[in-house]
Structure formats: structure tokens, C-alpha cells
């Protein structure tokens, strides 16, 4: 399953000792599960679980032009973070043609310093892309990669309290959503990728095994990439490389809300292309689908009510929380929430309900099947 060149996080031995099945993901050997994806998924929905996401890479930005760089490189506007040090923002980073290079969370650390966390697969190229912008504009920006840091995501209804105890940071109880708190060796953001409350803890690699042990001792369940995938899809969150790529824009990825066009003078990379897309009107859209019968999978064809092919499933699973098939699909047709279309499952057309993501929010389904979707 592994290749010689695959990188390992500082917790590799810890994962193996805890029974993890390891797989190669974006060049890293990561835990897929520690026995059961379903049990780990359930732990995060009911109480708390934690994920080693040290394959994702922090990048620190400083210097007089760091804000200028980010306002140019990101589709969302870091000016929103000016007033409140510690505030964080989700954004895409675009090519000139509007295609998505990566998605990331950026946190303003005060004094014009920022930290962004990049996806494993794109971290090297993203950093080079940013450095090239800095060089081209002769901006005064320092980009510092942080191989010395790792990340644990603690997620679930009880996760924040559990993390506060394990870290000795009682202030986490008052930490607002999408804000980060720095205390001693820990940088803790109230962010995540599961649709649950929780935090993502960035700390020195050397501190992570001890933190993992304290979380386990407190009853927090270690969870792998498989559960992370089913949790994020139920939460309607895109996965880079699967639901969004350089071939599609935020408008075709259910991410219009991450594009900030309000500051007319902010000529960020990709803006011209996005404005042209808006002017041209309807293009491809990323929608949610739910199925009572059959399980949608990546690559399956989507057909409209008339039986005409209109798109493709980008991510599909059997949802453990909803006990039905759910998917994100990119379609050309205008399919509104509540409409019925079809997914072709092994040659058979199966009805699919169009759902506005997320599928699952704070313990309940966001939709119900109409009568005609027979079980």
C-alpha cells in the first residue's frame, strides 16, 4: 500500500501502535481507519474524535506586504480579518482563468502576520506560486514553511471541552467559530472538516504524541481518513482534487460564497475570469444528491428527469448518519433543491433527490425523501 517515497507524520508509529490501517494519501502515509470507519464516524457525530492531519502544511507569512499578497492571491478578502487578530477565513486560491489551485484557511495573527494551512497535495506548488507573485511584484513578504509543526483536528459535540482539558486551555470555551487562540506552544483554531464543533490544533511535532495520548485517555476516539471523508461529505464540504480542481471555478464548486467581489479595486488573480463567468450566466454547478436506492460513486453519470446525461458524481458514499447514498455532483442542467434526477448505478437509472448541501447539520438530516423515492 505504501511507496518508498511516502512521507510520514510524527505520529506514524503512534498510528501503527493503535492498530491503524495505513494508506498513501497525497504522498503521505496516513491512517485510513483504526478498525472501523463507521465506529469512528459515529464517535465524531456523538461525542468526539481526533484526526492526525499533519499532512496538511502550515505556511507563515510576514513582512510589510503580506496582506497585499493575500488580497491578490485569494478569492476571499483578508481585509475582513483586519479588525480582529486571531480571526480566520476560508478561501480558494485561483488561477488567472478562475480555476481553483487550492482551498485553505488563513488566520490573521496580528501585526500583519498570517498563517495559512495548505492541502498536502498542493503545498509545495502553492508555496512556489505565492513566492513567484512576491518576486514578480517585488513585495516585501517572507514565506516560512513549517515542517516543525503538525496538526491534530479534534471534532465532535464534546471535542472543544475535551481539547481544552487536554491542552490546559480553558479559554477555548469562549473561542468563537473561525477564530484561533495562541497560547504557549499551541495554535488552536475553531475550525474543522466534519460539520461538527471542534478545533484544529497546530503544535510542534514533538508535542503531538503526548497530546494524542491525553486525548485517548480522555475518551476521544482516534479517527482516520475514511471517517474524515464520510463526515465531510455529509457536511457538504468539497474535497480538493475531487470536487474542485484547476479545471473549475468556485462558481462551479458550490463555493460562490468564498468569492468576495465587493472591494472594486481589489484585482485578485482570477477576478476578471470570474466576472466574465457571472456575466455569461449559468454554467456548471456543484449540487448535492441523495438516494434511497443505490449508492452514488465518483464518476457515475447523472441524468435529468428526461433521461438526458447532464453531469457526473464527483464524490459519493453511503452516508453512515443518514443511512442512504449521498453525493456531490457537477451538472450543467438547472436542478433546484427538491427536484428529482437520476444517477446511473451499474447500468440502472436510480432516482436521486437534489439537496442543497449540507446533508446533515447538528444532528439531523437537512432533507427528507418525497413519496416517489421508494425505498
Amino acid at each position, binding site marked *: 500500500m505504501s511507496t518508498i517515497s511516502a512521507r510520514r507524520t510524527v505520529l506514524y508509529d503512534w498510528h501503527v501502535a493503535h492498530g491503524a490501517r495505513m494508506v498513501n494519501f497525497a504522498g503521505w502515509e496516513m491512517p485510513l481507519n483504526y478498525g472501523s*470507519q*463507521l465506529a469512528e464516524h459515529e464517535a465524531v457525530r456523538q461525542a468526539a474524535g481526533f484526526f492526525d492531519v499533519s499532512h496538511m502544511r502550515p505556511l507563515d507569512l510576514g513582512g510589510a506586504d503580506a496582506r497585499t499578497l493575500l488580497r491578490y492571491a485569494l478569492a476571499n478578502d483578508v481585509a475582513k480579518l483586519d479588525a480582529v487578530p486571531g480571526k480566520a477565513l476560508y478561501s480558494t486560491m485561483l488561477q488567472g482563468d478562475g480555476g481553483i489551485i487550492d482551498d485553505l484557511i488563513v488566520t490573521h495573527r496580528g501585526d500583519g502576520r498570517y498563517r495559512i494551512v495548505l492541502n498536502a497535495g498542493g503545498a509545495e506548488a502553492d508555496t512556489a506560486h505565492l513566492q513567484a507573485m512576491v518576486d514578480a511584484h517585488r513585495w516585501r513578504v517572507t514565506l516560512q514553511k513549517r515542517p516543525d509543526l503538525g496538526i491534530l483536528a479534534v471534532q465532535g459535540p464534546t471535542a472543544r471541552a475535551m481539547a481544552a482539558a487536554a491542552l490546559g486551555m480553558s479559554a477555548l470555551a469562549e473561542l468563537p467559530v473561525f477564530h484561533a487562540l495562541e497560547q504557549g506552544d499551541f495554535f488552536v483554531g475553531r475550525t474543522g472538516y466534519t460539520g461538527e464543533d471542534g478545533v484544529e490544533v497546530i503544535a510542534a511535532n514533538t508535542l503531538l504524541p503526548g497530546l494524542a495520548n491525553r486525548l485517548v485517555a480522555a475518551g476521544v476516539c482516534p479517527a482516520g481518513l*475514511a471517517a474524515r471523508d464520510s463526515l465531510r461529505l455529509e457536511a457538504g464540504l468539497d474535497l480538493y482534487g475531487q470536487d474542485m480542481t484547476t479545471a473549475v471555478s468556485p462558481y462551479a464548486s458550490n463555493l460562490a460564497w468564498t468569492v468576495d467581489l465587493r472591494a472594486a479595486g481589489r484585482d485578485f488573480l482570477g477576478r476578471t475570469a470570474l466576472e466574465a463567468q457571472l456575466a455569461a450566466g449559468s454554467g456548471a454547478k456543484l449540487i448535492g444528491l441523495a438516494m434511497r436506492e443505490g449508492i452514488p460513486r465518483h464518476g457515475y453519470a447523472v441524468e435529468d428527469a428526461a433521461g438526458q446525461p447532464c453531469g457526473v458524481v464527483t464524490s459519493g458514499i453511503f452516508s453512515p448518519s443518514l443511512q442512504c447514498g449521498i453525493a456531490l455532483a457537477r451538472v450543467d442542467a438547472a436542478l433546484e433543491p427538491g427536484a428529482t434526477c437520476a444517477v446511473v448505478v451499474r447500468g440502472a437509472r436510480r432516482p436521486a433527490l437534489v439537496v442543497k448541501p449540507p446533508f446533515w447539520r447538528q444532528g439531523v438530516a437537512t432533507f427528507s425523501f418525497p413519496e416517489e423515492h421508494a425505498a
Partner: protein
Amino acid sequence: MSKIPETLRYSDTHEWVEDLGGGRYRVGITDHAQELLGDLVYVEVPDIGKAIHGGEVCGVLESVKAAADLYAPVNGTVMERHDGLGDNPQWLNEDPYGQGWIMVVEADAAAWAGLLDAAAYAKLTES
């Protein structure tokens, strides 16, 4: 390491076959296969009386994360199918060689003889 019982024989598509005597063989998927698939949520087994052909697809296994084909380990005819798996696909994970059996087929003894023994299958899963 996944379990590979000595008394069974195996296909290179990760099914196990148990000789029940009288030309009948019980079939399931191996511990290695269920580990690869992850938590099973849906199983589609061929109907009783259906002819199956060794190495060809005869059913469907779906886990939370993936859909996989079930292959026929030998040429034969389906005599029994484990209908309880419909409501309890997790049996394939929990007890792949016991409660997770999939079907009983009638087949030629030569087909059984052509399958891998435990040692050969162990070697296959290591490569």
C-alpha cells in the same frame, strides 16, 4: 496480519471456498478483502439456480467508501444464498469466514483443486 484458515482454498480475487462434501462448496470473501473494502453496507448475491463462471463478476459488494465486484471463484451453480447479509452486511467484516458466508455453490471437484491453498494465498496478499 489478516487471517487465512488452513482448511479453506482461495481465489486470486480474494474469495474463500470451503469444501462441504458432495460437490457443494461454501463461498465468502477473505479477511484481507474485507479489510481492504472497509465497513460493508450493501451486498448483492446471485440468485439461487444461477450459473456462475470462475473469474467473472457475479455480485456486488459496497462499503461506505467504495463499490467492488464479487467474483465467482469457480464455475458452478448457486444452490444457497445468504439472505441475512441483506440486513447485516457488517457480518462480512465481523466474521468473514463464519457468519459472513455469501453463498453455497455446486461445482466440479477439479475446480476446487485448482484454487490456491492457504500458503499460496498468503503469499498473494503479501505481494
